[in-house]
């Protein structure tokens, strides 16, 4: 393997690669091989493609590349076919293994597979000429390069940002570039990244640490997984730059154990970078040393909080500590430590390469750049999207997401995970950035966006998030440990029909108390789902309390099943009922014994005549 120990060697190597990788290749076939792609069945497709290329004797002109997630989760397995001569590329979705022949022969359209529209452009490669809603900086390489090949990363100007920083910039210049760009922490808090670096750089210490927080724990958020699986080197490169900026020689990536594929690819990437001299001693001949090690989480959501994360790296229980002192002053092993999340790092190289002014042109004034969201829930086009800050929720949900599944009515979108809130129809047109989401009673969080429709009960959603917090609370401080338990009990009373106005009042009051008194971010934000649902959907709470009804027909205890006049007496419901509470003669209207009914809904699902009403 070539040793790239000067920036000239890197540039020369990149040129050679660009020649070599294109070669005689006429067609490139990119196969999406992220966790969700593999789960959706891309592995047999890849095997068939390889076989077909050999059978057609086209090894010299067709290149098959395994890439990371393209973000088109709604159409997995996805495949992109690129015609090198014309530069024309088309993405095909829902590709089955038996289409391999057609793909290799580029007659895929004739084989009846529909192309999927790309709705993005790459700001690093030019202006948005069409009407693309997405701008991809963080995801610039995801779905375009083989994440297990450092050569492909280098061929796309990989490690050029590190070379530029280490050989032609002073560390203070690197910090001022990041500071000027206005980049804010993408993990949720939105603290200016440059400031964090500045604080750590100003400390005098015999050792400092750079940590990448890859403990993506928000349920419903998977952008960090996509970056780590699809473009691991961009994170390593950014950590080198951060290390150089603050004067640290040791990097740590803290990654959750639930992401086995991301762990594998990171491990592989670190090995490659070390072999080529891009990690280790005297990088690019600059005299700067930097190394990265991987540390694994073990299933604790609270470890996404930076002080808890540091405790976990130190091998302790992942309980949060008091701040101040902030990690930038005293963090890992009590040394100055910079903690940034994966998406934040993924922005750094692009900023160093193109400058702060370029970055500031994208997004809004207080939140420059883009944000990656994972769009899930009751939406037609589920997937990973990256949009400039300031895009409206309406554009995201109705243009990119193509609206609500099964033509149901949109109810709310939940952002910010268990710490966030719900945003309703009324606010769909506000441009979203860090500040506006907080003004709407939610927060950016790590970028999970879960769309809810008319069939979702908001009280039940609030209860779900409380269950999550209860499970994940580390138990160190009383407001979080006991307060959240009480909140959960009160919500439970409401969903089983024992709610009163007094409980609703207590719910509000206790929520505010927990917010004011909990120790860490987990506890301080845990009542947000409760407060935001009460604020936006008070009528739903009141329906549960005053009328003992669940308008979305979700809360089982408040439901009743009744047989109407459509009943033809087919006996199907009675035969399926697990507690035999349905009686009636053949060809006669049946009756449900309400005292015995357990409200399981089996009869409702079984009936072919719409003869059962759920209320």
């Amino acid at each position, binding site marked *: 393997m070539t040793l790239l120990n000067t920036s000239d060697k890197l540039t020369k190597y990149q040129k050679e690669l660009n020649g070599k990788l294109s070669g005689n290749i006429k067609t490139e076939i990119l196969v999406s091989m992220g*966790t969700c792609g593999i789960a*959706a069945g891309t592995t047999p497709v890849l095997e068939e493609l390889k076989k077909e290329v050999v059978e057609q004797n086209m090894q010299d002109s067709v290149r098959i590349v395994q890439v990371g997630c393209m973000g088109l989760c709604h159409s997995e397995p996805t495949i992109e076919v690129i015609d090198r001569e014309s530069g024309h590329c088309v993405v095909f979705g829902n590709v089955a293994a038996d289409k391999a022949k057609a793909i290799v022969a580029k007659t895929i359209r004739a084989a009846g597979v529909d192309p999927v529209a790309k709705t993005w452009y790459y700001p690093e490669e030019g202006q948005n000429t069409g009407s693309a809603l997405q701008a991809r900086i963080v995801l610039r390489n995801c779905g375009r390069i083989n994440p297990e090949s450092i050569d492909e990363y280098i061929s796309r100007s990989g490690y050029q940002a590190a070379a530029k920083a280490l050989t032609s910039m002073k560390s203070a210049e690197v910090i001022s570039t990041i500071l000027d760009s206005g980049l804010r922490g993408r993990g949720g808090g939105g603290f200016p990244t440059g400031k964090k670096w500045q604080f750590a750089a100003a400390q005098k210490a015999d050792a400092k640490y750079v940590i990448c927080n890859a403990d993506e724990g928000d349920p*419903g958020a998977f952008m960090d*997984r996509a970056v780590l699986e699809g473009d691991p080197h961009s994170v390593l490169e950014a950590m080198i730059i951060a290390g150089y900026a603050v004067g640290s020689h040791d990097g740590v990536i803290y990654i959750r154990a639930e992401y086995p594929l991301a762990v594998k690819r990171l491990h592989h990437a670190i090995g490659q970078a070390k072999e080529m001299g891009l990690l280790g001693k005297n990088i690019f001949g600059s005299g700067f040393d930097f190394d990265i090690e991987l540390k694994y*989480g*073990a299933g604790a959501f609270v470890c996404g909080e930076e002080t808890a994360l540091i405790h976990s790296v130190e091998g302790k229980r992942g309980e949060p500590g008091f701040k101040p002192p902030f990690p930038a002053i005293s963090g890992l092993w009590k040394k100055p430590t910079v903690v940034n999340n994966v998406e934040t790092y993924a922005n750094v190289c692009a900023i160093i390469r193109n400058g702060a002014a370029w970055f500031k042109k994208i997004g809004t004034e207080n939140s420059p750049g883009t944000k990656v969201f994972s769009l899930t829930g009751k939406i037609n086009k589920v997937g990973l999207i990256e949009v400039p800050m300031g895009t409206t929720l309406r554009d995201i949900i109705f243009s990119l997401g193509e609206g609500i599944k099964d033509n149901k009515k949109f109810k709310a979108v939940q952002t910010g995970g268990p710490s966030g809130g719900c945003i309703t129809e009324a606010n769909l047109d506000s441009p979203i950035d860090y500040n506006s989401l907080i003004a709407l009673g939610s927060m950016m969080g790590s970028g999970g966006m879960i769309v809810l429709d008319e069939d979702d009960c908001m009280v039940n959603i609030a209860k779900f998030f409380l269950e999550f917090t209860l499970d994940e609370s580390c138990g160190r401080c009383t407001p979080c440990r006991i307060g959240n338990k009480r909140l959960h009990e009160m919500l439970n009373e409401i969903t089983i029909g024992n709610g009163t106005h007094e409980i609703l009042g207590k719910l509000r009051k206790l929520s505010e108390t927990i917010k004011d008194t909990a120790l860490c971010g987990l506890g301080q934000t845990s009542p947000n789902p409760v407060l935001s649902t009460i604020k936006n959907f008070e009528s739903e709470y009141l329906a549960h309390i005053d009328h003992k009804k669940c308008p979305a027909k979700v809360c089982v205890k408040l439901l009743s099943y009744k047989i109407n006049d459509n009943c033809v007496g087919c006996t199907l419901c009675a035969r399926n009922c697990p507690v035999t509470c349905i009686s009636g003669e053949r060809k006669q209207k049946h009756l449900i014994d309400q005292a015995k009914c357990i409200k399981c809904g089996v009869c409702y699902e079984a009936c072919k005549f719409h003869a059962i009403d759920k209320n």
Partner: protein
Amino acid sequence: MTDQCTKCCDNVSILNMYPDKKKELEKYIDSLPLGSDSDRNRGFLIQSLHKAQGIFGYLPEEIQLFVAQKLKLHLSEVFGVISFYSYFTTVPVGKFKINVCTGTACFVKGADSIVGEFRRFLNIEMGETTKDMKFSLGGLRCVGACSLAPVVMVNDKVYGNVTPKKVPEILEECK
């Protein structure tokens, strides 16, 4: 005697029973750059436990003590860490670990009914293992495959768009 017996063999040493496994764990811990500073050694605790659980399948007291002695830590510290993180288990688990994702996206798409169906088929509750030690049922928070919600993970394999009807098929595949 098999490694699946949990009731009658409390006094049997699992380390003595599997000398190869013990050697593998010992070799791993010895390869770590341990020093005299017990604070720094503690930094290797979680990865050592990952390794130990990978080898033995679970972390009974005997193995906790072994790791503690190797890293020169107190048993109480080791146990404290094990009980904090949901990934670690002190009781043996089944050959197939069925984990139903209970993240938000899976929740709104009906993960509850999937859990119910597994419970019904296996006749165990969440967190339990079948008597024949074949299946363990549990929940996990978001595997990040929300586009395929609801998701079930069996060992390292991810099943997407699971419906209650698919539950017997998934169990059938576990052989």
